[in-house]
């Protein structure tokens, strides 16, 4: 039997690293329906979870898969599902249920090219806006984008920590290349991995309110069977969790759902900068496209352009304040993403006309070559040094 945390150096794919990250984070329930290119995560969880006292269930479809992880979360365990393309679409209704019931869980989307069945075995980053707005109604959630297998390991752990801390579904927006590429993944010793568990109620059980916020805006969450009165519903509910069909309850619920994210942006938003100190041309990217961007920055610097890269580790909530601040001191932005413009529009919106924003995108199917970024730099910013 293997231990939960496989301390050491491994040469594994992003999908496997993601599964190992989940296990290292304490995930004990995985419910999913296999789909390319996320299937290896399910295969690996099926192999690993029974050894460490966890449960794997292959559900009948993705609607049931996400339902199963919400149910598992309310029994008190950390839970995850993994999917892609059409499966992610099927999960949208219950993603809203997770937001509304403030259920901590992790959903991995190893993106492929859409729309519809699209190119099942080929990469894409076309689900980024769906990740933010795919379920009906207003809401906040968190989406992270790993750029390497090592990052898949860490971002999955971080996804669990954030989901537990803020009682919110967290999306790990990987893609086919990151999911299937192999690189060295270093797994630290178990006691070196920082883990967060959901806040638990401590007061009198007869006066307990399921959605009464704690100091950071997040309500403590008991498990079913802990002895607290639990009523979980997707209807608009009051702080007791009971349906309340009125505008005041709706406003109070939405304040809490949005507030716990919006009031903790500094903790949730993570970005990385590369050669940004004196950058005039800022490449904004996330996921596998970061690697295109990094190569392009180095080549552009060699050609004499002052280029830098801003990597969105957290894509949602979007780092609006940071883009606004950068926009005031640079010549322009280039967003690199494997779609025909999604995060690009967010960058453009936040740049607010202070700096132009350009897109280097594609219809999907393969990674974007750094030359495409260099072409854009030459076309939009002229010859270096002039």
């Amino acid at each position, binding site marked *: 039997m293997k231990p939960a945390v496989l301390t050491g150096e491994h*040469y594994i794919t992003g999908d496997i690293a993601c599964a190992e990250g989940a296990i290292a984070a304490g995930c004990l329930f995985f419910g999913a329906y296999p789909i390319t*290119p996320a299937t290896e995560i399910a295969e690996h969880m099926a192999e690993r979870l029974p050894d460490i006292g966890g449960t794997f269930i292959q559900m009948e479809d993705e609607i049931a898969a996400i339902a199963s992880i919400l149910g598992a979360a309310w029994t008190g365990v950390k839970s995850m599902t993994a999917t892609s393309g059409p499966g992610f679409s099927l999960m949208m209704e219950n993603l809203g249920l997770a937001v509304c019931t403030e259920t901590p869980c992790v959903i991995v989307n190893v993106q492929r090219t859409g729309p519809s069945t699209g190119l099942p*075995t080929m990469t894409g980053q076309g689900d980024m806006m769906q990740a933010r707005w795919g379920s009906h109604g207003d809401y906040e959630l968190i989406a992270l984008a790993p750029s390497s297998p090592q990052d898949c390991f860490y971002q999955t752990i971080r996804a669990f920590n954030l989901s537990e801390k803020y009682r919110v579904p967290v999306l790990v927006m990987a893609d*086919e290349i990151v999911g*299937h*590429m192999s*690189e*060295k993944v270093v797994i630290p010793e178990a006691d070196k991995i920082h883990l967060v568990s959901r806040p638990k109620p401590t007061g009198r059980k007869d006066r307990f309110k399921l959605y009464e916020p704690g100091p950071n805006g997040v309500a403590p969450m008991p498990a079913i069977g802990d002895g607290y009165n639990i009523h979980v519903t997707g209807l608009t509910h009051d702080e007791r969790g009971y349906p309340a069909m009125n505008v005041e309850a709706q406003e109070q619920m939405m304040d809490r759902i949005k507030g716990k994210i919006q009031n903790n942006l500094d903790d949730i938003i993570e970005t990385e900068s590369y050669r940004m100190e004196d950058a005039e041309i800022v490449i904004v990217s996330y996921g596998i496209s970061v690697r*295109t961007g990094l190569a392009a920055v*180095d080549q552009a610097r060699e050609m004499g352009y002052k280029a830098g890269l801003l990597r969105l580790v957290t894509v949602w909530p979007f780092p609006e304040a940071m883009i606004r601040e950068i926009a005031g001191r640079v010549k322009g932005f280039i967003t690199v993403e494997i779609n025909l413009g999604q995060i690009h529009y967010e960058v453009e919106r936040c740049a607010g006309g202070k700096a132009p924003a350009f897109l280097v995108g594609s219809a999907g199917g393969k990674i974007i070559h750094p030359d495409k970024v260099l072409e854009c730099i030459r076309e939009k910013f002229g010859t270096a040094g002039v």
Partner: protein
Amino acid sequence: MKPTKNNQTEIIVTGFGGQGIILAGRILGMSASLGDHKESTLVQAYGPESRGGACNAQVIISDKPIHYPYVNKPHILVAMSQAGYDKFVPALTPDAILLVDQDLVHPENAPCDHFAISATRMAENLGNKMMANIIMIGFCTAITQAVSTEAALATIVQSVPKGTEARNIEAYNKGFDYGLSTLKGREKRAAGQTGALAQ
């Protein structure tokens, strides 16, 4: 081995799905990473081609972090099928190294030096043609030193089915020895030529 200016070696292994092409790429990448403690990235064909069609694994080995994970210009092309060779030969430059299974690939119009081995036939003589990929790794290691022998052997032992380790090590050694004797033969010929020219 001819490293780029930033000591980056880009390798493509190509052949039919089922020849162990992906495993060969994985062994090279893993050897470089976990054995030789370099940076290494493996991307692989994933669709239907990896189950019978023209299949490839792309490995980058570097002293520095690898950004773009796909091969631009292969320094080393290992071809185990004609279709795979035909697909990647346009990407070869004169200073690349081409390694072929000579019974399966006719390296016509190759712009660079090529080294040939009957890897599949040698594997059949060892009792299992599935080991042709391991023979090819041995051959590749001797000719290019892309990874160290210690790292390659340790990775092979970890990567092949239990109970077949000794036979796979034998296969590696066959390929490696054939590679060394190929290099020696070339040296001798080169030395002979120099002698003749000196007269």
